[in-house]
């Protein structure tokens, strides 16, 4: 069932065009890299603030508010371009270990962020002094940083374990 879905996805005209074209795949990769560098850079700004390594002179709420639109815009682009790259060789990517771990890590990063926003950021309005944030916020920030670094690494390893130019 899932295999049939992957094959159907790979057989769509757009996936075929990306796979067989000379330039479509690299151009989509360019947008993917651009988007992911902005996703990770902007998330790192928030994480480093939570951990207490940067922007201590600015509140957590303001730091988050000024980068969040960048994060979400870039994330949408990263997902769309990532989806297109996946579709072009869906049957191969779906069975690639590094791809599977990467998707799982992105889900974990999302869960980490959701738990923080739902349960752990009570009192965050008061985090506008250079004082260290509570331990729970530092743990969430540190975990997020580690997850996103691992996501980049696993993403890069996909290229080395699937037959594409690296």
């Amino acid at each position, binding site marked *: 069932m899932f295999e049939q879905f992957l094959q159907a996805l790979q057989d769509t005209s757009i996936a075929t065009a990306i796979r067989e074209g000379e330039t479509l795949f690299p151009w989509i*990769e360019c947008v993917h890299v651009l988007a992911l560098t902005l996703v990770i850079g902007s998330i790192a700004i928030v994480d480093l603030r939570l951990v207490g390594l940067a922007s201590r002179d600015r509140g957590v709420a303001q730091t988050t508010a000024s980068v969040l639109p960048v994060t979400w815009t870039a994330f949408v682009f990263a997902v769309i371009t990532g989806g297109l790259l996946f579709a072009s060789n869906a049957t191969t990517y779906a069975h690639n270990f590094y791809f599977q771990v990467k998707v799982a890590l992105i889900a974990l990063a999302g869960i980490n962020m959701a738990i923080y926003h739902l349960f752990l950021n009570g009192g965050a309005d008061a985090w506008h002094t250079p004082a260290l944030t509570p331990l729970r916020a530092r743990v969430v920030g540190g975990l997020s940083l580690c997850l996103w670094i691992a996501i980049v690494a696993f993403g890069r390893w996909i290229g*080395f374990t699937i037959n594409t130019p690296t």
Partner: protein
Amino acid sequence: MALQSLDSFCNWLAATSVSQVLQTVGWIIPAVQTVHILAVGAVVTSAVMIDLRLLGIRGKDQSVAAVARRFLPFIWWALPVLLATGAVLIIAEPARALENPVFILKMGLLLAAVGITLTCHIPLRRDEAFWELSAARKRAARLIAAASIPLWVAIICAGRWIAYVQGT
């Protein structure tokens, strides 16, 4: 003649023991590329945050100088990391980069981007309000920002295309 000596330099570099290690130990290149991409993230996001402030799109509750102070250090710290990891990638496969027109283009664009970042940075060191003092300077700052973003985008695209364009 010059091309020939570049070719022999690439061959010599590829034959060195350091390059041989990089070519044979499989995890080094993806690991170095990962660090390279993370550093690209630090530089490009920082540049974009400063540019968006200069354009008046984000962070308007702070001065240009405050935003620049927050993000410029990331750029100046990440650039040496980029040069170091980039050098490792060149040593691993010299001809892939040095004989590749896209790599030369990327280096040219990088020089322009660093030049533009310095143009924004240096006046701020003398006078924190430099870019906000007059309408003309605000316009100049917006021009700098509007040039900086496409430059970084082009650098990232060129970086990816190095893998797809054959050396001459």
